[in-house]
């Protein structure tokens, strides 16, 4: 009787456990060799742990490292090309957690997958460990994750003890005007990076990853430092100057009067992968130039 009960409990536990995790995620026993990663962050993670050669396809937004240029691009978050993806016969597909439709299709095709989601900065290293374990490279994943954590700690230590300026991190604005401003709110990996780099986020009370900001909000929040991020090609100096000058319309903002509007270009600010260490260091150098002399 007792054994029957315990085996029943065990069965229930197994069912619950089985339901808690998508079946396909637990079914990957052998180390995958043909990996598709639709997520730029995980693509970079795979390269960082030395598994880049196992990639057979990436997402449309993948730019880094250079090697991805030669791989087939299979769409992005909203438009994955399922047909091309299936034709590549992958043995592991890394998808966004929110790609429900794609995940259903892969499940039907019995292709193992691994779903990615990221909320905060510590998730970068955690994702790296989990991904390493999933592809049978647990120790490589562990050491790459450890490197990231160590480098982030080093940046943090470098700016420790310095006064923390109230900063605003903008990741989108209409060019040539103070309109359509989108800033990082008090949630997400950009917010975490900003605070790690020795700043106080002026929007930390708004727990959203993206905050559309009006000019009134900028004036009212009075940031000491404004950092604007741009992606893609670096702008020529005259355009950078012109974009910086746009801010002169709000002269009471401390960042404007103290000439602390900084424009940074780089994909590392949009991809929460191994290059977050680079992003953290660039932010820290921008906020605390003295700490790096």
């Amino acid at each position: 009787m007792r054994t029957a009960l315990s085996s029943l409990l065990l069965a229930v536990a197994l069912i619950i456990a089985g339901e808690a995790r998508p079946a396909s995620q637990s079914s990957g026993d052998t180390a995958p060799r043909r990996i598709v990663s639709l997520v730029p962050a995980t693509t970079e993670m795979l390269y960082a742990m030395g598994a880049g050669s196992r990639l057979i396809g990436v997402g449309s937004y993948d730019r880094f490292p250079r090697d991805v240029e030669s791989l087939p691009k299979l769409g992005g978050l909203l438009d994955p090309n399922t047909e091309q993806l299936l034709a590549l016969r992958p043995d592991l597909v890394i998808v966004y957690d929110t790609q429900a439709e794609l995940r259903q299709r892969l499940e039907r095709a019995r292709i193992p997958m691994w779903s990615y989601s990221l909320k905060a900065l510590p998730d970068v290293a955690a994702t790296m460990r989990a991904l390493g374990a999933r592809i049978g490279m647990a120790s490589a994943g562990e050491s790459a994750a450890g490197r990231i954590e160590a480098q982030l700690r080093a940046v943090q230590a470098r700016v420790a003890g310095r006064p923390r300026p109230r900063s605003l991190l903008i990741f989108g604005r209409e060019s040539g005007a103070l309109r359509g401003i989108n800033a990082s709110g008090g949630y997400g990996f950009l917010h975490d990076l900003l605070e790690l780099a020795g700043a106080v986020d002026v929007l930390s009370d708004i727990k959203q990853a993206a905050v559309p900001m009006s000019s009134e909000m900028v004036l009212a929040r009075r940031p000491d430092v404004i950092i604007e991020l741009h992606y893609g090609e670096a702008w020529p100096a005259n355009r950078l100057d012109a974009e910086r000058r746009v801010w002169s319309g709000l002269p009471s903002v401390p960042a404007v009067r103290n000439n602390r509007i900084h424009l940074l270009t780089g994909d590392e600010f949009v991809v929460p992968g191994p290059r977050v260490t680079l992003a953290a260091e660039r932010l820290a150098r921008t906020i605390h130039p003295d700490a790096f002399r």
Partner: protein
Amino acid sequence: MSRQATSPWCLWPEHADTVTTAPRGSSVRTRLLWTVAGFGALALAAITLAPLAGSTDVSLARVFDRTLPYADNIDAQIFFVARLPRVLAAALVGSSLALSGVVFQALLRNPLASPDTLGVSAGASLGAMLAITFGADVSLFGLSAIPMASFTGSLGALTIVYGLSVVRRSGTSTMVLLLGGVTLTALLSAIMGFVQFMADFTQTFRNVRWMMGSLDVASYSPIVAALVPTAVAWGGFATLPRVLDLISLGAESAAARGVDVRRAERVALVSASLATGAAVSLAGPVAFVGIVVPHLVRLVVGADHRLVLPGSALFGAALLIACDLVARTAMAPLELPVGIVTALVGGPVFLWLLFRRT
């Protein structure tokens, strides 16, 4: 103030005779006075009160404190940079969209017509989207790339629609123009979809945000720039009231009364399109104002365009200023896109008015 129709569809002058037998000069003048005074008071109240409220507390004493240098005066900057241009932009956009709505509804003889019916609004949106996606960075006279591209887009759409209105035969006029406009809108929307498809993640985000509309212009130069085409359009509108009364009854009867219908239609088309293009390039496609304000005003003043046009201009301004005030304060410190508020606030009001009378 008289209302002619008793049918549920009283929003629309179905009953032709009542319009043409409108009261004589003197009584119209009195009603015009009342219309302008009533809606003007609303608009004036909105313009004066709206800048006083916002997501932050501002002290008026500090705003006008001359002893403080402007560069140090946050309250003054919030008032003069963040709020006042915004309220003025709302007034301009609201009145332009409302006037265009009146004109398009009369011109197309269709109560569902609005500033976006003929594709001008879609042309403006496509222009803006192209500028965002391909990162245009030209600027001229303090005007940035997006409003310029947007206005250019609206002119492109206007050219196509105008071409349609010229080549079509008279007689089938409005139907062809309407179908042509709807098709053009669909075509432009498809191109917008393609541009979105080509855009990267952050650009898509900005495109979507732009499409929700925003009046936070943060300086006066975009407003001044938009005033130029708007003034031309208003000049056109000023010639239209009587003609629109006749056209909305039917082109044939208008022609029988000595109206040069084709010429009048073109003036109406170009003016309304210019006003729409200027409004959309300034604030993005603000939904709902252009279709609903004319109907609400007609409910109050009747169908005479001598009253509907000025009434709509003033009420459109007041309504959009009020909606923007809600957008700025309802979720403070966050701001809602104004297009969402216009639809959420105005839609139910309109439905209530519509069904209350049935």
